[in-house]
Structure formats: structure tokens, C-alpha cells
């Protein structure tokens, strides 16, 4: 090799790489969630933004604090902590005290992700671990749904949001039940159109079905999403609730209401599809989605809480390793009869 030859790299093939990276995929998810997030902030006022910021801050700070110093930059840049915080925030009631949201973020990343070994190793969806913790610890705050009374109060932040940590929050905002709560406890239905555009009570990000679907379509187009999981989840929810609806239309909600109410769309499109905690193989994805759908209907109809998406996804997360073990695709050329 002469002196003027360039220094050549030698490494094993393949020597081409498709340009998509993990952090780009994460950015897509944030972009997909942006419309629903903005709608949530608009619907519930500035307080919602504060709650979201608190949960994101909780996640990022925990990730930062528990990473080795030389990996911190990379860990912050992969975007996964931000998404966990955002998803957690979107599942929280808009009037939740900020310190609770922050604590939820800490638990989501700490217990949901880091103790498993970090990104890619956790069994359960971190955002939902954080939410499950909050629901178990602060059941009253987690089920108090404040709403904005009118357009002028955008900048009015409910006092509960700024409550001092570990003090009684004192709910003073206008409170309303979620469509699922109304259905469960007062046998009262909500017009479908209100559900589609998000004109109801509920968690910050779960109300606008239309915008959530729009983001999902964006992710599908960008191929960041396994379409089988939302498809099977929604289909299974629709089918199971249709069966119940046909048995007794008075007692059980119809399939469309089941799909557009509560956190189902948010869960099916953005949380059940978390690649880390869902099956990798096509058939596995179908089983997973059907399981989520069935559990959602069962918990909503027969459980103590009006909503069941979170537990449904967490339970199916637990089943993922087993599904992956038994539902591998047939290897090319294997199991073929030879004459």
C-alpha cells in the first residue's frame, strides 16, 4: 500500500445501510402524537401542558440520572424517554397535580424500563407502568376529570395542578365524568360525534379519536407501525362488544362507542404497538391484539373501573415472550413434503 492510497475501511458485508434509525422512528411517533397532544392542551387548557411537561420531565430526569455519564447524551437523543413521558402524560387526567405526574414519570422510567436493563429489555410498557402506579397510589386524583368551562379560561390553571407535593390537592375545577364513567355508573351514552372530535371529559390525550387515528395513519405510511396490532385490537374490541351488545343492548355499549371512548385508540395505536413489549411476528401480533381487545371489553364491562385499556395492555405485555416463543414463522423450505 503506497503512501497516497486512501486509508480503507475493512469490515464485513453488508456495506449498505438503510437510512432509517431508531431515533428517527421515535421522532415520527412524537410527530404523530402532536395533533392529539395539541388538541388536548386546547381542550383542557394550559394546565394540561403543565401536567405533560411534568411527566416528561420526570422521565427524562430519571433517564439522565441513572445513565452512565458517557452515555447520557445518546440516551437523551434516542427519544424513547421523551415518548414514555409524553404517552404517560397523555393518559393522565388534565387536573392532576404536577408533582404526581412527575412522580409517575420517575416510576415509568425507573421501574418500567431501567431496572429491566434499559431500552429494549423491559417486559411492560413503561408509560403504563407509571400510570398503573399512579392509579394505585392516588386513585382519587387519577379519577377526577376537570374540564375547561369555556374558551376564555385557557390560561386558568386549576389549583389542583399546582398543589404542593403530598398535600391534599383540593379539587376546585369544574369536574365531569368520562364517557365510560357516564356509561358505567349512570347508564348515560355520549354522542359519537363528541367522541370523535374529543369534546368529552377524559385524559389529556385520549379524547380526540379523529386526531389519534390521523397520527396512526401517518405512522402507517412511514412504516413505523405494525398495523396488525391496532387492527386486531380494534377489531377484537368491536367484535366482543358487538356480541355483548346483541345479547343486551340496554346494558352493554355498542362497538363504535367501545372503540371511540376511553383510551382505546390511544392505547391500541400508540401503546400496544410499542415494539419492545409486543410480539415480533405477524401471527403473534394478531394474538396480542385480540387478547388486548378481549381484556378491554371484559374489564370495562365487568370490572370495578370504567376503563380497562391499561390493564389489558399490561397483561398482554406479560404474555408477549410466550407468544413470541410459540408463534415463530415457518422457516423457508422447512416442513415441506418431498415426493
Amino acid at each position, binding site marked *: 500500500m503506497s503512501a497516497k492510497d486512501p486509508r480503507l475501511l*475493512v469490515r*464485513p458485508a453488508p456495506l449498505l445501510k438503510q437510512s432509517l434509525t431508531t431515533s428517527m422512528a421515535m421522532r415520527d411517533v412524537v410527530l404523530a402524537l402532536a395533533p392529539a397532544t395539541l388538541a388536548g392542551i386546547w381542550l383542557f387548557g394550559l394546565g394540561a401542558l403543565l401536567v405533560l411537561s411534568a411527566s416528561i420531565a420526570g422521565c427524562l430526569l430519571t433517564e439522565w440520572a441513572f445513565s452512565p455519564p458517557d452515555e447520557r447524551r445518546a440516551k437523551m437523543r434516542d427519544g424513547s424517554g421523551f415518548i414514555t413521558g409524553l404517552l404517560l402524560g397523555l393518559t393522565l387526567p388534565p387536573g392532576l397535580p404536577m408533582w404526581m405526574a412527575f412522580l409517575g414519570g420517575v416510576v415509568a422510567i425507573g421501574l418500567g424500563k431501567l431496572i429491566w436493563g434499559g431500552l429494549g429489555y423491559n417486559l411492560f410498557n413503561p408509560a403504563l407502568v407509571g400510570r398503573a402506579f399512579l392509579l394505585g397510589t392516588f386513585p382519587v386524583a387519577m379519577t377526577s376529570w376537570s374540564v375547561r368551562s369555556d374558551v376564555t379560561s385557557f390560561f386558568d390553571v386549576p389549583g389542583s395542578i399546582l398543589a404542593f407535593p403530598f398535600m391534599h390537592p383540593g379539587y376546585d375545577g369544574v369536574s365531569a365524568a368520562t364517557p365510560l364513567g357516564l356509561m358505567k355508573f349512570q347508564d348515560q351514552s355520549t354522542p359519537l360525534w363528541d367522541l370523535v372530535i374529543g369534546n368529552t371529559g377524559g385524559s389529556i390525550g385520549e379524547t380526540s379519536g379523529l386526531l389519534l387515528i390521523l397520527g396512526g395513519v401517518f405512522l402507517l405510511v412511514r412504516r413505523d407501525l405494525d398495523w396488525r396490532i391496532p387492527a386486531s385490537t380494534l377489531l377484537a374490541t368491536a367484535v366482543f362488544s358487538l356480541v355483548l351488545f346483541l345479547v343486551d343492548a340496554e346494558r352493554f355499549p355498542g362497538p363504535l362507542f367501545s372503540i371511540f371512548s376511553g383510551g382505546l385508540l390511544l392505547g391500541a395505536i400508540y401503546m400496544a404497538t410499542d415494539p419492545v413489549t409486543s410480539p415480533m411476528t405477524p401471527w403473534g401480533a394478531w394474538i396480542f391484539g385480540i387478547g388486548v381487545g378481549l381484556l378491554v371489553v371484559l374489564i370495562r364491562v365487568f370490572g370495578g373501573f370504567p376503563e380497562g385499556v391499561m390493564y389489558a395492555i399490561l397483561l398482554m405485555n406479560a404474555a408477549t415472550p410466550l407468544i413470541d416463543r410459540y408463534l415463530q414463522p415457518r422457516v423457508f423450505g422447512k416442513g415441506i413434503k418431498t415426493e
Partner: protein
Amino acid sequence: MALKTKALATLFRRSFAHGVHPNDHKVLTAELPVQRMPFVGRYVLPLNQHLGVPAKPVVMPGQRVHRGQRIAEPAAFVSTSLHSPVTGWVRAIGRRRAPGGQFSQAIEIEADPYATQRLDVEHLPSWRSLSPDEFVSVLQDSGIVGLGGAALPAHVKYSLREGVRIKYLIANGAECEPYLTNDHRVMVERTDALLRGIEILQTRLGAEETIIGIERNKPDAIESLRRRIRSGQSIRVEPLRVKYPQGDSKMMIKSLLGIEVPAGLHAADLGIIMNNVSTIAAIADWLDSGMPYIDRMVTVSGPGVERPSNLVVPLGTPVREVLRFCGGLSPDTREVIMGGPMMGTPIASLDAPVIKSSSGILAFTAAETARPREYPCIRCGRCVEACPYFLNPSRLARLAKARMYEEMKRIQVTECVECGSCTYSCPSGIPIVQLIRTAKRALRSHKRGGS
């Protein structure tokens, strides 16, 4: 309407499942007619340019050899001959660096600058008169290897087991590796040689039909072949979807015939023989005019090359000379690849010689060689959707990192053909196929050591 449905069905049928879609970059050289590379001073000819046992030299240092003269003979059945690409003198027989970086025995020839370099071909008996065994041995004398990449000596496929009847001959013109256009140019410029080779092989094998599979991005090759096929010939040209690895033999059989070759069996067991189009043209050259395999068609391309070209290069020519003929490397070149970018090998030194499997010489700059930092696997499943053999590369990579090789064997790692689609598609930048390759090697050496 019915026609449209049929066209759609064809579109879907003419492919295999999974695979990846890299940008093919063939536009750099696809239209360029083949040029002949001039002779240079020194040639290095490794004795193991083919799969199997290295050839045995039949010349001595100092001896004068002429172009096309046999300089090494097959040392076993899976081995082939080697011929001198130039008239000149054998300067040395000894250890030289092969393109892969390892040392191997090689014959070094110094060209005679005053020789005419005319090719004096020997006369072969007519291929029609040969017995099957003679045909195989005549083919072994040619030095031709499978030019699609594996470099299996060409005669091996034609030594059929007793009772095997060949129904289809498949000419593989997929050329699914990005950048490469040498098979393309063979199909366009040497259409008649290819068709002649098909005629010979089809007659010898008694095959009912020949199918030429070509990816749709080579319409001129498809057109040119279709025009020259005579009406009486049972040769069919099938355009295929542009998808990597369309040229993998089992994928191609799936695409063309819809048959899934069972694991552990060869295409010949199902009555199919497949050869690369360039191999078939080379076989025609040998059987018709006695021209041994001494010149390799090479695509010189990539952003680091000043003048991308399709060249006919005598075997043994140093890469340095080939690149010089193409205007040299741009100063920001980071990587020079021999072969295609998906399955080729980067060379450490420009002194590496062109060998029988050097389908391409590609120079990549910083833009192509940059790799993002490796992130943990997030189980996104893109590799699972890329693997044409329906393996689970993510799981294999995890097991390989933990050195759980026996478990990998249980989930069929041995079926992997190392096409690299998994690594190509991984957004976390995990070197999946590289890990699998290491594991396969460990499993092989373990097996050898154990028995």
C-alpha cells in the same frame, strides 16, 4: 378488467416474500458499453479463486506462458483449472494476499510487453459428441466458475446423480446487488453468446424449458433477449420484481416457478439447474471457440470512482490498475469493495488482484460508509420482515451475543444464506448478519472438532 387482474396477479407471483429494497444506483453504469482493460505489467492469480480445493500449479517459475495456457489444474472434483490471462513469464509461485486479506498460494505472471497477446485457442471436440462424464470434465478444464457470487466451479452442477432428470434450466439475470451492471451488459451486448450457451446446456441436459429471470430494472436486456429468441426455442424471459435478494437461487426458483425448495435439498433434486447469465455465456465461449475463463467482466462504480465503467479485465489485474484506468479514486474514498455492496468484501489494499468472483469494484465515500451508533434492539421486527428465509434475525442476534450457539441451531440458523437484509434494515444499527456469521462459523468448527 380481466387482463388487469391477470397483470396484477403476475406482479405478485413473480417474487418471493420479504426482502429489502435498497436504491440500486445502477444508473451510474447501466448504459455504458463494455470496454476492454489494457494489459498491465504484473498479474497475481490466487489458486483458490473458486469454492472447493485450490488448483495445483502446472508451471514453474521462470517458465514462459502464453495467453490462455493452463497454469494450474484441478486438484479434486470440486476444484477447477486456471489459465494465464497474458503472454509472459511466470515470475513466482508463492504466498500473496488474496482480496479477502488472507494469504494464499498464487502464481505471479509478468506480462511480455512485446507479445501480441493473441489468444491461441485449442480445439475442443464438439460438445454434442461428448458423453455426460466427458462433458463435465471438459467443463472443468475451462476454469469457469459460477459468476453470480459463490464461485462454485461450473462443472459441479452438471455432474448429475443417477436418475435425476432436469426439467428446467434457469438463467439467472436478476443481478439484484445494487451498483452492479455486468450481467446486465452481458445480456445486452452478448445476447447471442448467452442464447447459444442456453441452447448448448438445454440440449445437453434435455431440459424442457429455459427460463431467464431478469429484474424489471433492465428493460433493454429483457427486450434484447426477447427479440433474439427464435420461435422454435423453448426459452422464456420473465421480468421479476426489483427486490433484494431476488438473485438468490432458492428465491429465484420461488419467484419463477412458485416452488419452495425444501431445506437441505438442491435445486437439481427438483429437476432444476440454475446458472448465472454470465456463466452461461462463458460456457458458450469455451465450448464453441475454446476460450478459457481468463477475462472477468467487472463493474467499476460508486461515488468514489471518477469514471464509472463496465470493463473486461484480465484475471489477476491489480485493483489499483483498474481504478487508474477509470480515472482514479476521489480523495474522500473510504472503502473499496470487491463484489456487490450487500455480499462483497472490502479490500484492505489496492494491490489486491481481480479474481473470478470480482463482479464489481466499488468505491464508497464518507456518505455511504457512515454508520449511526448502535442502539439496543427494540424488537421492531424490521429484520423479521426482511429475512427472505423467514428466520428471526433479532432473536438470532441476541442469542449470538450471548454465545448461545446451540440454541441458534435449534431455531435454524443454518438456513441463513447471509444475504445481509437484516443488517441492512436494522434501525438500531445492530450488525445482525455479522453476528450470525460468527455463530455459524463457531458451530461449523465445533462440529469438525467434535467428530
